[in-house]
């Protein structure tokens, strides 16, 4: 798939990957063997009929291909961009055994974009079942909530989505940067849900503006899905972490993506435009933060990670993009202190690490090398070391059973300890991927449908 050159793209927020042309998409689709027993399909967390949509590309019936995607996935143009296909469908492709698998993700993206480029009345709106008379509330408009809402609407239920921020999309809007997932794509996909009858209420914090109990007892909802996301950013607890210039990745990315700080002062929200930026972490969020810092004009961006590149949880593609754009990797380093002057960051003191025995995650655990501290000069530090559960949740429903870490306890169908209340996505599993959250939202929607119809 064509990409913009690293030097050019690192200077703006436009999308990095350009997507296939029609010819390229057809050529790639032709590589598909149309296996009798398609091993790619079970690899997809929402079981998209991959063989069939690729077949439609080969036949040139793109609208039919879009319809196949939308049967299973409300947001194909999003998933085609951010799903880790290399460890899901593509790894299961028969061609992967001998060489390159079919680029399923890129084909999904191409079809998703084909649909978005159509005029509204020509776009594929999934068929909606006759009205069931039930009303469902969805808490959170991120991937889990949107997938759940789309499926509930398809099944004929009236759906209202409550979003705490001023714009819907959750992590798709505040977290994943424009250069990886253009906000216009997110908006168009959400527009399709509203075309299906889904109502989205922004500025509504469940746990503050409404409790879950009020949604059911006073607002007349028959069932509720909670997909409120992972929540609070984790800090490391090292000295100097509250100096000016230290951000959580959530804050840094929210300022830039949701609040458009890159347009400051036209947009009112500022963000520090660091000259030398250290990003701590090795996941996709760390890559997004590092690449965003570059685009804000940083001269040097360091990625500080306590293990090696092999253990990084980020997608290979993102690691490759970050390196190509000039992010400098400092592996086997762990921050021990952030130092500053007059309240502002001047450096990050890191300790060198070695890999020891495997830990609970199966990865070799990093061990400190005594006396190996060194300082990285920087004016901005971004912590991308994960999130924990948001305490607002306990206020949203005091009777809802939570795990010891504050996440919602839910069974495989998303059913919680409260009748009619379902949950899925990061608020159940802790931080995971967009598609896993979408899968959970969809499974919950079906379970909610069964719950509602059995109750009738």
């Amino acid at each position, binding site marked *: 798939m064509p990409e913009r050159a690293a030097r050019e793209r690192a200077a703006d927020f436009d999308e990095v990957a350009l997507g296939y042309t029609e010819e390229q998409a057809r050529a790639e689709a032709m590589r598909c063997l149309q296996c009798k027993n398609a091993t790619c399909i079970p690899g997809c967390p929402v079981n998209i009929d991959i063989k069939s949509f690729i077949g439609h590309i080969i036949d040139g019936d793109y609208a039919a291909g879009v319809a196949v995607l939308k049967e299973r996935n409300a947001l194909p143009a999003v998933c085609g961009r951010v799903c880790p296909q290399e460890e899901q469908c593509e790894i299961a492709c028969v061609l992967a055994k001998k060489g390159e698998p079919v680029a399923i993700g890129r084909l999904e993206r191409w079809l998703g974009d084909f649909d978005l480029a159509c005029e509204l009345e020509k776009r594929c709106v999934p068929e909606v079942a006759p009205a069931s008379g039930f009303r469902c509330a969805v808490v959170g408009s991120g991937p889990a909530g949107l997938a759940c809402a789309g499926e509930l609407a398809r099944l004929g239920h009236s759906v209202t989505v409550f979003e705490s921020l001023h714009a819907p999309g959750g992590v798709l809007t505040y977290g994943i940067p424009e250069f990886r997932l253009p906000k216009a794509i997110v908006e168009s996909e959400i527009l399709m849900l509203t075309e299906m009858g889904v109502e989205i209420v922004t500025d509504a914090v469940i746990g503050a*503006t409404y409790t879950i109990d009020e949604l059911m007892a006073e607002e007349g909802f028959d069932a509720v899905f909670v997909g409120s996301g992972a929540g*609070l950013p984790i800090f490391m607890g090292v000295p100097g972490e509250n100096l000016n210039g230290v951000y959580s990745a959530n804050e840094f990315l929210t300022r830039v993506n949701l609040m458009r700080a890159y*347009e400051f002062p036209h947009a009112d929200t500022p963000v520090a435009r660091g000259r030398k930026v250290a990003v701590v972490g090795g996941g996709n969020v760390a890559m997004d933060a590092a690449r965003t810092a570059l685009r804000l004009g940083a001269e040097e961006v360091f990625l500080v990670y306590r293990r090696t590149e092999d253990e990084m949880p980020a997608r290979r593609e993102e690691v490759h993009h970050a390196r190509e754009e000039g992010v400098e990797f400092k592996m086997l380093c762990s921050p021990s202190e952030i130092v500053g002057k007059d309240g502002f960051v001047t450096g990050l003191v890191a300790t060198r690490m070695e890999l020891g025995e495997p830990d609970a995650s199966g990865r070799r655990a990093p061990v400190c090398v005594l006396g190996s501290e060194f300082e990285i000069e920087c004016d901005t530090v971004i912590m991308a070391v994960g999130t924990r559960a948001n305490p607002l949740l306990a206020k949203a429903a005091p009777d809802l059973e939570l795990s010891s870490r504050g996440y919602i306890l839910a069974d495989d169908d998303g059913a919680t300890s409260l009748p009619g209340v379902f949950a899925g996505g990061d608020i159940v599993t802790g931080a995971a991927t967009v598609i896993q959250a979408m899968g959970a939202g969809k499974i919950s929607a079906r379970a909610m449908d069964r719950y509602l119809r059995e109750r009738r």
Partner: protein
Amino acid sequence: MFEVVHKRQLSDAVFEMGVAAPRIARKVAAGQFLMLRVDEDGERIPLTFSDWSAEEGWVRFIFMRVGKSTHKLSHLEVGDAVADVVGPLGVPTHTEDLGRVAVVGGGVGAAVAYPVARAMAEAGAEVTVILGARNAELLILADEFAALPLAELIVMTDDGSAGEKGLVTAPLKRLAESGSIDHAMAIGPAIMMKFCAETTRAFRVPTTVSLNPIMVDGTGMCGACRVSVAGETRFGCVDGPDFDGHAVDFEELMSRQRVYAEEEREADAEYSRGCACHL
């Protein structure tokens, strides 16, 4: 969009504003705050509720025009609308079983002190309010406080143009020293809250402060509002805004409040050049 239903100018740069927000109005408790975004380009700024009516469906807040966001907000009139109002956020102020309490409201902090003192008095506390301002012109809500069932209302101004001349810490010290209060609550500029906490510390009077760190989402997601309390990092938005004044690191708070001082000047200067009010 949330319609502006009330506006009153309290001094040259201080405004009281009300917006229609029935959902929020029925849930607010004293000490909680809202996040407001003036328009599509706006920042999300935290403002503490100064009053509300569940029956009439409105909430009010008081703000001082200090930067671009509050400058833009000050230009709105009744009938205009703000893009977003979110809330009520934060843990409500503890108002039960306080006994004898001194509530200090400094500057625009008086706006928050008003519903707090009212709620404490309603809960049966014996409330002394110490209201402070630089001068009589900047003193706000004096009539509203006077109408509350208070044990005493003490007004302090730096120049003596209203009430007594001096700082709010003088009467606070008098009350703490004489053993006349069981609890103190200070709401105002960080430096004032710091000195209030220093004043009561010597007399071991438990003191709550209502902090006003920078926020972005206001719901715990970003951590911009982190404050050090008893050596631990807490989030102002979900753990606060009220904290033990004797345990707060005020130097850090004040430093963090200034992080965007330069950007704020730049944004306001740019906005003011194109603004008809020439302020």
